[in-house]
C-alpha cells in the first residue's frame, strides 16, 4: 500500500513536469554556483602564487582550499599571509577575490544553495502534501479505499521525498562529474570523499526541511494557510534562529575587542623595548634585545592564546545555539567537512604560531648576522575526516533529532487529521 501511494506521488511529479522543472532549476543553480566559485578559486590560487613565500622569507601562508568551491566558509580569512619578524607577526597579504560584489551578496556556493534555496524548495514541495489531498477530496477516497492513515503518511512522505530529492541529487552528481572537464577542478581522492559526505549531509538536511513542511501540511486544512506557515518556518529556521544564535552568543561570551588586543600588543612591545634599552644603557656591552624580543613573542603568544580561548568559547556557544536550527547545524557540519569552518581557522592560527616559534631562532639569526636563511615550508594541518565527523556528530544528531520530531509530528497530525 505504501509503495502504491509513493509511486502515485512520484508519477504525479513526473506527469506535471514538476520533477523536470526542479531538475532544470537545480542544474542551473548548481552549475552557475560551481562555475562562479571555481573562477573565484582560480583567482585566489593566482593571488596565492603571487604571495607564496620564497625560502628566504619568514612567511606563513596557506594555499586556498579547493573544497571552498563548495563551501567558502572562512577560506578567505584563512588565505591571509603572516610575515614573521623579530618584533612582530603581521598580516602581509591576502588571497581574497578582488571582486567587491562578493562582499555585498551571499556567496553562491553549494552550501548557500542547499541551505537557503533548496531548503525553500523542500518547504514548497512539502507544504501541501496532505492538505492538497483534502482540498481535492482524494484523502477521503484513499481512507475509504482501505488505506490506513499510517500507510498514507509513509507513502506520501516517501513519494514526495523521492520526487524532490532525485532531481536535485541527479543535478549535483552530473555537475560533480563535469567539474573537472568543464572547470578543471582537481580534487584528491580524500577530497572527493569529503564532497560525497557533504552531499549526503545536504540531502539529510533537505529531508529534515521537507519533513517539517509535511508536518505543517498535516496541521492545516487549507493549502494557503499551510504555505504561509511553511514560509514562516523557512525564514525562522534558515535566517532568524542562526543569526539570533550568533548574536546571543556574542552577548553571552566576552571577547576582548580587537583594538584592545592590538593596544596590548603594542604595550608589550613598548615595555620590552624599554627594558631592553634600559639594560643596554646600563651596560652597553650587553645584548639584551634578542632576549626581550623572545619575551615579547612569549607574551604575545600568551595574549593570542587568551584571545583564541575566548573566540573558541564564542564559537562553541554560537554552535550550540545555532544548531537548534537544522540550517545552523548543516552549516556547521558542512564547513567542518570541507575544512573551511571556524575550527579550521583556529587550527590554522595555532599552526602559524607553532611555525613562528619553530623558525624564530632563524629569524633572530637573520636579524643578527644578515644571513640568508632557508626557512622550512609552512605546512597546514588538516583534521582527518573521521575527526571531522566526530566533531560534527552533535550537529548531525541535532539535525536528525529535529527531523525525527517533525516526522513524529507529521504522523500524529495525520492520525488526528479531520479528513471530512
Amino acid at each position: 500500500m505504501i509503495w502504491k501511494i509513493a509511486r502515485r506521488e512520484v508519477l504525479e511529479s513526473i506527469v506535471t513536469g514538476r520533477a523536470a522543472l526542479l531538475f532544470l532549476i537545480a542544474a542551473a543553480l548548481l552549475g552557475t554556483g560551481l562555475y562562479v566559485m571555481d573562477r573565484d578559486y582560480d583567482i585566489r590560487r593566482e593571488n596565492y602564487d603571487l604571495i607564496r613565500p620564497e625560502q628566504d622569507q619568514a612567511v606563513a601562508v596557506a594555499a586556498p582550499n579547493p573544497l571552498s568551491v563548495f563551501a567558502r566558509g572562512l577560506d578567505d580569512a584563512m588565505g591571509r599571509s603572516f610575515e614573521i619578524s623579530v618584533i612582530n607577526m603581521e598580516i602581509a597579504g591576502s588571497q581574497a577575490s578582488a571582486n567587491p560584489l562578493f562582499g555585498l551578496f551571499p556567496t553562491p556556493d553549494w552550501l548557500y544553495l542547499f541551505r537557503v534555496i533548496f531548503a525553500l524548495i523542500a518547504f514548497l514541495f512539502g507544504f501541501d502534501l496532505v492538505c492538497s489531498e483534502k482540498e481535492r477530496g482524494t484523502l477521503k477516497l484513499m481512507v475509504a479505499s482501505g488505506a490506513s492513515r499510517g500507510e498514507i503518511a509513509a507513502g506520501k512522505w516517501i513519494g514526495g521525498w523521492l520526487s524532490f530529492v532525485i532531481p536535485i541529487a541527479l543535478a549535483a552528481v552530473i555537475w560533480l562529474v563535469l567539474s573537472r572537464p568543464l572547470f578543471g577542478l582537481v580534487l584528491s581522492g580524500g577530497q572527493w570523499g569529503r564532497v560525497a559526505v557533504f552531499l549526503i549531509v545536504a540531502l539529510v538536511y533537505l529531508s529534515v526541511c521537507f519533513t517539517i513542511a509535511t508536518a505543517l501540511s498535516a496541521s492545516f486544512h487549507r493549502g494557503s494557510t499551510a504555505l504561509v506557515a511553511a514560509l514562516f518556518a523557512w525564514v525562522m529556521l534558515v535566517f532568524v534562529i542562526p543569526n539570533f544564535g550568533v548574536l546571543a552568543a556574542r552577548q553571552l561570551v566576552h571577547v576582548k575587542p580587537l583594538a584592545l588586543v592590538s593596544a596590548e600588543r603594542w604595550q608589550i612591545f613598548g615595555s620590552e623595548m624599554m627594558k631592553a634599552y634600559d639594560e643596554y644603557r646600563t651596560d652597553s656591552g650587553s645584548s639584551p634585545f634578542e632576549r626581550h624580543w623572545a619575551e615579547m613573542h612569549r607574551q604575545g603568544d600568551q595574549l593570542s592564546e587568551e584571545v583564541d580561548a575566548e573566540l573558541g568559547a564564542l564559537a562553541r556557544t554560537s554552535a550550540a545555539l545555532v544548531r537548534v536550527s537544522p540550517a545552523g547545524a548543516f552549516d556547521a557540519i558542512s564547513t567542518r567537512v570541507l575544512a573551511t569552518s571556524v575550527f579550521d581557522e583556529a587550527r590554522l592560527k595555532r599552526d602559524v604560531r607553532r611555525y613562528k616559534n619553530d623558525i624564530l631562532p632563524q629569524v633572530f639569526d637573520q636579524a643578527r648576522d644578515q644571513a640568508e636563511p632557508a626557512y622550512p615550508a609552512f605546512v597546514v594541518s588538516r583534521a582527518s575526516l573521521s575527526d571531522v565527523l566526530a566533531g560534527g556528530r552533535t550537529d548531525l544528531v541535532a539535525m536528525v533529532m529535529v527531523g525525527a520530531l517533525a516526522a513524529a509530528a507529521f504522523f500524529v497530525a495525520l492520525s488526528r487529521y479531520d479528513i471530512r
Partner: protein
Amino acid sequence: MLEAIDLTKRYEDGLLALDHLNLKVNAGEIFCLLGANGAGKTTTINMFLDFITPTDGEAQINGIEVAAEPLAAKQHVAYVSENVMLYGNFTARQNLGFFAQLSGRDGMARDDYHMILRRVGLQEKAFEQRVKQFSKGMRQKLGIAIAIVKDAPAVLLDEPTSGLDPKAGAEFMTLLGELRDEGKAIFMCTHDIFRAKEHANRVGIMKEGRLVMVRTHAELAEEDLERLYLDYMEVEAAA
C-alpha cells in the same frame, strides 16, 4: 449489510449531530436518506467510513464494527462523495487504476479499466484524458467507476447527483439500480426527492440527528413524498 445501532454523535461544542440512529440497509436495496442541511446525513456516512468516531452506539458493515476494526470494515464498502475532484493531472484510467490498487484490486489490465469506464457511461475519448478537463458529471461517473472497481458489497453515496444535469443524474441513478440488482447494499444521502422516490427501495427522512420517517417504495407509491418531506420540515420550523 449496513447497520446503525443507536448511533450517536455529539461534538465537543455540545452539538448533537446524530441521536440514537437505528437503521439497516440490506443487500440488493437502495436506501435514500433525505433531510435538510445539517440534519446528520453526512455525519452518518462519515461514521460508517470511520472519518469520525461515534460518541455512542455502533456502525456496522457486514457485521464488522467500524470503530473497532476500521480497516476490515472498509474492505466491504465503497464510497462516492458529493464532489469527486480526483487527481486532475492523471487520466481517468490512471485515477481508476490508483484507487483500484488501493482497494486491493491489483493486476487489472487496461482493458478491464476501459470496460468499467464504458459501463459508467464515460465516452471512449475521455478514458485517456486528464481529469482536470472533465465536467462534474464526468467526474461523478468516474467516482462511481472507482466504487464499482472495488467490487464491495456496500456503497455509500453522499449527495452524488447534486449539480448534475437531469440526463447525467438519470444515468447515474440507472447505474445505481444496476448495482442494486447485482446485490449491493446502497445507502445514499440526497436532496433529490424525486429520484429518491423513483429509485429507492426505502426512503428515510432525517431531522436534527434523528430518523423521523421511513417509507418503502410501495408505501410511497400512494403518498406524496415531497409533501411528507415539507410537512416534516415545517414541523421543525414551527418547533
